[in-house]
């Protein structure tokens, strides 16, 4: 029943796409998080009094018990490296000029981790458990984006 394809490049093809793009707004919880980052350069989380979990970024509700939350807890700026990876290939598989280092950091006061770049880790290998801190861009360069955080760097 199957047609035998000897020359795949000669198969008739109908190219197409789904002509949509999306605009993602940060919602109620995200609005408080990004506004604080933009205006004050701080990382806000949400503490659930019912179960004791502190989420970061700030959230509107607790997924464990459905309590209503607000952006009431400033976390960091320092924290503990929970895991990291060193990325050598780009999205199309192309080699990167400089490897990207991504870290998962549990900021002080938070239960959840934040993912961001690790800046200039230097020659000494990163170790899980070591202390890193958030580097926030200067006020005039912040736009209300996760990139207002430049990344994490080692604390001295």
């Amino acid at each position, binding site marked *: 029943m199957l047609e035998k394809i000897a020359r795949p490049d000669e198969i008739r093809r109908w190219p197409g796409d789904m002509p949509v793009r999306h605009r993602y707004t940060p919602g109620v919880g995200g609005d408080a998080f990004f506004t604080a980052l933009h205006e004050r350069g701080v990382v806000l989380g949400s503490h659930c009094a019912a179960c004791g979990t502190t989420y970061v970024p700030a959230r509107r509700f607790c997924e464990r*018990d459905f309590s209503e939350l607000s952006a009431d807890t400033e976390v960091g700026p320092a924290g503990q490296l929970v895991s990291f990876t060193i990325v050598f290939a780009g999205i199309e598989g192309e080699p990167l000029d400089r490897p990207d280092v991504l870290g998962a950091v549990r900021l002080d006061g938070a239960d959840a981790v934040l993912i961001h770049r690790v800046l200039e880790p230097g020659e000494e290998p990163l170790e899980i458990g070591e202390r890193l801190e958030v580097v926030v861009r200067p006020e005039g360069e912040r736009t209300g984006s996760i990139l207002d955080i430049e990344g994490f760097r080692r604390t001295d």
Partner: protein
Amino acid sequence: MARRVAVVGAGMTRFVRRAQETGKELAWEASREALASCELSLDRVDAVCLTSAPDAFDGVHMKGEYLSDGAGAFGRPYMRTYVGGGSGVFTAIQAYYTVASGMADVVLAVAEEKMSSTQPHPQGAFLTIFDNVLERPLGPNLLWIFALEMNRYMTVHGLDKRDIASVAVKNKRNAADHPAALLGQADITVEDVLASETLAWPVQRLDVSPISDGAVALVVASEEAAKRISSDPVWIQGVGWNLDTAYWTNRDLVFPEYVANAARMAYEMAGVTEPRKQIHVAEPYDPFDYKELHHLEGLLLFDKGKAPEAARDGVLDRTGDLPSCPSGGLLGVGNPIAAAGLMKVAELFWQLRGEAGARQVPGTPERGVAQAWGDLMQVGTVVVMGREGGPPTTATQLETPPVATPATSLSDAEFRSATGAVEDAIGAEYEWDAGVAVGRFLDGLREGTIMGRECRNCGRVLVPPRMFCERCFRGTDAWVQVENTGVVQTFSICHVSWDMQPLDEPQLPAVIAIDGSDGGFLHMLGEVTPEDARVGMAVEAVWKPVAERTGSILDIAYFRPRGGTA
């Protein structure tokens, strides 16, 4: 033996054009309101059933997983079901069988949709419901399907557009009493609907429900749990769902037999033998005004072609003999697709408990039916619910949903300037091939012939052809050359592109039944003015010159009236 299952709580957000809340925040608002309505905490929920229409609306791949925290799924058995527009009612069915089977005692059923994320228009996400090889080269627009179905329904039954427009009027007026409604309008008239912009004739702007964001949730419980939780549970007495063929141009566009099949399944389970007498309130699916009528007939509540006069005569009004869409429906409350379907089930819950406030239908309705429709425009999903044992015992002074029902509407400017907002395109491109049957069909077009496949079991000649017969579920037997002529089953006069931009020249898409076959396909009419196009018109294929043919559906330039220009 299935266990008895009841709805004990319901909640919904306002339906708005652009919600400030994220999808998961909307889901949480509706879910916590549903739980609060029956004084239940999340830890009492055993399992969560979620639905949401295409991922492409929210722009989130694996939307079920994304929405899980807002639906209360953390650490619980959880599954998203998805049957397109039929999803909202289907998730109530999913909750039903999860409880009826004994798998869970208390289930949260949640439906969410955030269509405002899609740019420039959610219709872009719908284009791939058309066949990518046979239909998309024609430049289709989602409205075509509805306009073509509506025209055939009107023409076969000789219906007056005014009667159909009265459904939009009824629903937008009903929605004026709904605290969560987007488009309630107490003073709208049939003239307003008939004067609104023609999009794809016979579909006009006010015949169509709006793009919306919102969420709805139900708490569904076993008999034992329901009696513990609520003094007035509303029982799910019957559920049904059914699909028509995936080839929409091969369907009966006049009567939705698949809805009738779904309704029969639900009625049989519910012990309903005379639906028109035993159903007291209906929430049929109304993304377009004619669809409500189509569906009321599919639900066996009116004879074929008779629902429009019932609408005209006030039978469907809230105070009429069979109130239909007392909520205001999709046309009035709004159409966040999956959420809108579940809203219909929630409305039955409130109506049957006597809690619908200004929307309450008179008397004490004991049984209602909710229905939605979707997938590739061919699924019917039906739920029959009823109260048992005397008049409602709950307070009737409640406003449902509460007036303070959440979801904050953003203006377009706020939406465009929101702090932290990100705009992105998935950027996915595809290359579709024709497959075996359609590949041979396209070879035929290049040669100036239309080919079908014969099934010798049912005797049908299938156009578009397929290598298997979906009714007999066996391989088809032979290629058959059919005629290059056919009959217009229905047509539309379309004035807008898929992203709702005006066209310079109207398009005339049509479904053409091909002579010598039992099927037909979508193509365009030419050499005929919009005024002269007719359902039932005999047409012939006009071929492109041989040298210009490529083995494409566009090798037929268009179909024209037989014997030349009309």
